[in-house]
């Protein structure tokens, strides 16, 4: 079984999406030039999700990748809802009031987010009313709280994450008279999702991470080479601080059973996640909800199964770790990706491949004649060769696609091997998951001119 290059391309490009921040009158005032994103499924259906949106009532852009487990329901819900929670958390008091008044009097709402979605990135129509009501309750509380202080982005991100997870939990406990919705909210709560979200506003980049997806900054050094800076910490067993945190939160007696085989309670890889109420609710609550729930839930062995050594829930939190970074002109791009990418590629390689792709031929060590003796013929030969080399890069119009091509198709020499790529992509559904995980990537490109100008102003 062999895939031709065009077949490979059509698989790789099926989910690719690009967004360019519009230029106004020749000027792009945003620090973000645009982003490329793509997904390659291994699970069927894919359990990863991605989101991107521009905040319309505050400045800034939100981008996120979400890695679901035990189904895609939770990842789907978080991908639809989380940015609204973040946007609302960032809104000033007056805007919240204005929005609430509009809802109250049935007037048109101020748009909060402008989504940048691939046609495959769907929103659930059925749950929108339910989700909206929960969100409204949240902003009503924010209005009542009115701290009067300007919103701190870090705090807003943390609040939004925690609040959404709380709402997911509550909605599942309360249930819904509509049986479809009732089953949906339960599936959302019983499945789980990690989230890695970036908020970019001018030179202020915030990364809020929950789980083992990762954010990485691509930095161009003065000599033109590329290096990677991590902007998130994985929440898993490899992270000593995480293991330490989990152990601190539970009695000493549980120390041995907390982390087994590098998994939380011997079951869960990420140490922080949305949903996953099996690791959050008390046993009684779990039993009550499952028993009163629909048959499908009752028949599901997974939901009925209580993790071993389950004494002092919650064992899991959705609270993110937030890192703030001031963008510098040498910070050229940001990669957000689910662990499917990081399992196969080192971040240094990611930085190099994306960096070289984005700068294309121009900054790839420009040729200078200088004082050397070069003939026209020699120069011509050199340029023709460079052109041939570069043309392979331009096969992809999307940096994320380019990265996936490398992640899946790289041979031991670090170059894309078509045969390998063809094999990996033609694996039958049931085998695919054994060789690779779902991969979701967003590559955000920064505008160094704008960032440089902002820096000078400050």
């Amino acid at each position, binding site marked *: 079984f062999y895939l031709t290059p065009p077949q490979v391309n059509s698989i790789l490009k099926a989910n690719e999406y690009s967004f360019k921040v519009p*230029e*106004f*009158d*020749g*000027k792009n005032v945003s620090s973000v030039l645009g982003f490329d994103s793509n997904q390659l499924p291994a699970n069927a259906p894919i359990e990863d999700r991605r989101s991107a949106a521009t905040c319309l009532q505050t400045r800034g852009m939100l981008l996120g990748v979400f890695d679901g487990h035990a189904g895609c329901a939770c990842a789907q819900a978080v991908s639809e809802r989380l940015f609204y929670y973040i946007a609302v958390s960032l809104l000033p008091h007056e805007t919240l009031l204005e929005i609430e008044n509009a809802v109250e009097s049935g007037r048109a709402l101020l748009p909060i987010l402008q989504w940048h979605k691939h046609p495959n990135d769907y929103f659930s129509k059925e749950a929108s009313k339910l989700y909206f009501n929960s969100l409204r309750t949240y902003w009503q509380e924010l209005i009542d709280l009115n701290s009067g202080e300007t919103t701190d982005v870090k705090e807003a991100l943390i609040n939004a994450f925690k609040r959404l997870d709380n709402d997911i939990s509550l909605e599942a406990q309360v249930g819904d008279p509509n049986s479809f919705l009732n089953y949906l909210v339960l599936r959302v709560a019983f499945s789980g999702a990690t989230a890695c979200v970036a908020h970019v506003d001018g030179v202020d980049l915030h990364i809020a991470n929950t789980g083992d997806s990762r954010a990485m900054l691509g930095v161009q050094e003065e000599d033109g080479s590329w290096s990677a800076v991590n902007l998130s910490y994985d929440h898993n067993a490899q992270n000593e601080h995480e293991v330490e945190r989990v152990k601190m939160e539970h009695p000493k007696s549980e120390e041995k059973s907390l982390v087994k085989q590098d998994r939380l309670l011997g079951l869960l890889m990420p140490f922080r996640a949305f949903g996953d109420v099996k690791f959050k609710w008390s046993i009684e609550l779990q039993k009550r909800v499952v028993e009163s729930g629909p048959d499908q839930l009752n028949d599901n062995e997974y939901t009925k199964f209580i993790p071993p050594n389950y004494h002092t829930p919650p064992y899991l939190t959705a609270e993110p770790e937030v890192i703030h970074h001031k963008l510098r002109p040498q910070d050229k791009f940001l990669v957000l990706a689910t662990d499917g990418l990081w399992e196969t590629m080192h971040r240094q390689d990611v930085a190099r491949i994306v960096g070289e792709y984005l700068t294309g*031929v*121009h900054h790839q060590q*420009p*040729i*200078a*004649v200088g004082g050397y*003796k*070069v*003939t*026209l*013929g020699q*120069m*011509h030969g050199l*340029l*023709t060769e*460079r*052109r041939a080399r*570069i043309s392979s890069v331009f096969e992809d119009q999307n940096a994320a696609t380019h990265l996936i091509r490398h992640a899946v198709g790289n041979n031991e020499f670090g170059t894309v091997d078509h045969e390998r790529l063809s094999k990996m992509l033609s694996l039958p559904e049931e085998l695919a998951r054994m060789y690779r995980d779902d991969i979701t990537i967003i590559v955000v490109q920064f505008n160094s*001119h704008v960032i440089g100008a902002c820096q000078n102003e400050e």
Partner: protein
Amino acid sequence: AAGMFLRLLSDVRWRAANAKWRRMTCSWRSTSSTAEPHPVSLPAQAQVVICGGGIMGTSVAYHLSKMGWKDIVLLEQGRLAAGTTRFCAGIVSTARHVSIELKMADYSNKLYQQLEQETGVKTGYVKTGSISLAQTQDRLISLKRIASSLNVMGIPCEIITPKQVAQLHPLINIHDLVGAMYVPEDALVSSANVSLALATAASRNGVQIHERTSVSHVSVQKGCVTGVETDRGQIQCQYFVNCAGQWAYELGHSGEEPVNIPLHACEHFYLLTHPLKEPLASNLPTIVDPDGRIYIRNWQGGILSGGFEKNPKPLFTEGRNQLEIQNLQEDWDHFEPLLSALLRRMPDLEALQIMQLVNCPESFTPDMRCIMGESPTVGGYFVLAGMNSAGISYGGGAGKYLAEWMVNGYPSENVWPLDLKRFGTLQSSRTFLRHRVMEVMPLMCDLKVPRWDFQTGRQLRTSPLYDRLDAQGARWMEKHGFERVKYFVPPGKDLLDLDQSKTFYKPDWFDIVGSEVKCCKEAVCVIDMSSFTKFEISSTGDQALENLQYLFSNDLDVPVGHVVHTGMLNEKGGYENDCSIARLSKRSFFMISPTDQQVHCWTWLKNRLPNDSTLTMEDVTWKYTALNLIGPRALDVLSELSYAPITPEHFPSLFCKEMSVGYANGIRVMSITHTGEPGFMLYIPIEYALHVYNEVMNMGQKYGIRNAGYYALRSLRIEKFFAFWGQDLDAFTTPMECGREFQVKLEKGMQFVGQEALLEQKQNGVYKRFTMFILEDHDTDMDLWPWWGEPIFRNGRYVGKTTSSAYSYTLERHVCLGFVQHFDEKTGEELVVTTDFINQGEYEIDIAGQRFQAKAKLYPFSSLFTHRRRKDEVELSGYQRE
């Protein structure tokens, strides 16, 4: 990097000149009254301040001072001739498509040739000649068209075979060539030195030159220049000339009253090499290989070769602070296609050693033509910039015309194609300019075929019907930012794609336009003509009438509801504008002019109407959608849509009535069609446009109504011998010269602008005459089509050029319009052109070197009109705008 460039370009000759230059600098300083040597302080005032010490600024200074203006200050922010002028390739080439550009280049060449003798500054002028190569037959046609124009201008030029090319240049590979054009008098110069020579001559004539002085902004009071602010103080002045090259846009925007100068810079690369083993002769012809996108000239025994790539790199979009010109980098990867083309053309150069790849930005304009003239918004603010990489070729001529303009009030040639006022604020968006110049720069080398349309910067101004028409197969062209329909492609029919439809022969839309024309003749068509410029002029008393009577040549004191075709003439009787004016009431007039008159006409009238609150003029272009209902059944369609009687008795030709059409009220209906065909123009308030269009199309169904475009209109108007302003008519054409005496109120004893000139012409006769030519032995399917600018021969002697042409579907012949002059056979002196002179000649039209017999006519065919229903109400005027 700056040092590197300096070293490269300052060859021995330059240094010699430079030394001399410095000495002269001292000599001006010693003549100036101040004792202080450095720096000489700026004068407090001057008549003229020129900003920019490149080829343009120095040429303007040179010509102004020659014409007797002495009180001139030239300011240069760096050193003289240090910008694009310094780095440009120094090729003086007269092979130009547009006649005014050709004239400028020819003048420049002659000026530079004697400049060294005049000034003593070595200019490096060498008459090398130039060879333009053709790799395809189409390219050869294009070159032949230029050759025809050059020959009738008296510039030696010949079409040669590839073998002859090889004889003229030893290194050229001729295997892929089909021919070439040789212009033996083209030249090479050191452009910086030409600029210095002009500056030297200017300073001898009294012009003060100050280097290292930059203009921060221009002060304006009451719409006129009053002075400039520089980093070294103020200078009061009456005139300001912006010759700031690629900084002209920014400088234009730096004042409180912005002056829009639509240009944008692109990087431009050329290669310099070490000398060949056997150094190239300095008089070896320059090679232009447009199909390879390159030019190649000899340079100090080696070569200098650059070109115009398909993927240009625009720069300075955000303004000058991004990068300094000297810091621009070489980009070899970008240059690779041009290098390949060079080695293909001259394979023996493989072993030649590279010296440097120079990055020299050039500024480009939205229509590939340079920008000159006075600002429409600020009096006394003149501009000369945007040379589209031909600054050296145009420098002399452009400087001369601008100087004439400033001194005399108008230049000695028709420069409308270059006039700043052809642009408005709408062409000043940086995004528009950035996108457009990326299309314009490759066009430098692309084949110039008839009816070319720009692809970028489109859909800016549109009619409210745009989407409707587009959905019905409209194909669009653009004028002054406005989208206009060329023709409608019928459903199921496919035209060639853009690249393939480029042809000098019969185009693929021939039958489509033919059927639209047929429908106009036999039934009724709708053409959306909303792009027209529309002004309303009204007053509380008779001021409007009185003033317009003076400014327009035809009698406007007609009964209310009449439409008058009239010229807006200058003192010499030439057409500044050609328009129709409807008298809406005793005191208000509705004026319709060509689309690209929006800025020019507005400025002309504003400057001449009294500044009086009782007289108002408003630009209402955007308020009305204009539909042209052409054809014998137009009357029936309109009758059914309105209760007002519109039979010829109630609604004769050249009438204007406000009436309702369908549900919509207040539609201005005029019984004119701009083609000589029967029908109506409907001026519709835009909110009713869709309604009226739908009603017309629905009602028209039973009369066979269909959409039509401007190509059909053009064919109709040309076969009827209607001239249009901007192509046939210009500021150097009078009504007398195009048979429109009947549109002038000479007999009415009223004063108006241009009256004296016209009276004189009436007495003494005219020196050129607008004539219609029917091509006789021209095969529409097989022969090259005429376009415009083709030389006209009478009894074998050159007498003028065509100004427009179209295929007449009625005559089944091509029709060319053009002007016939009468040159004395011996002296070449211009003589009076009489009717007999026109009628008693055998004519030929030269299309790319091939001559076709033509029949000359001074009046349109009456036989064309016989089948018409309203033959007694023919629009008498030869009048049309496009």
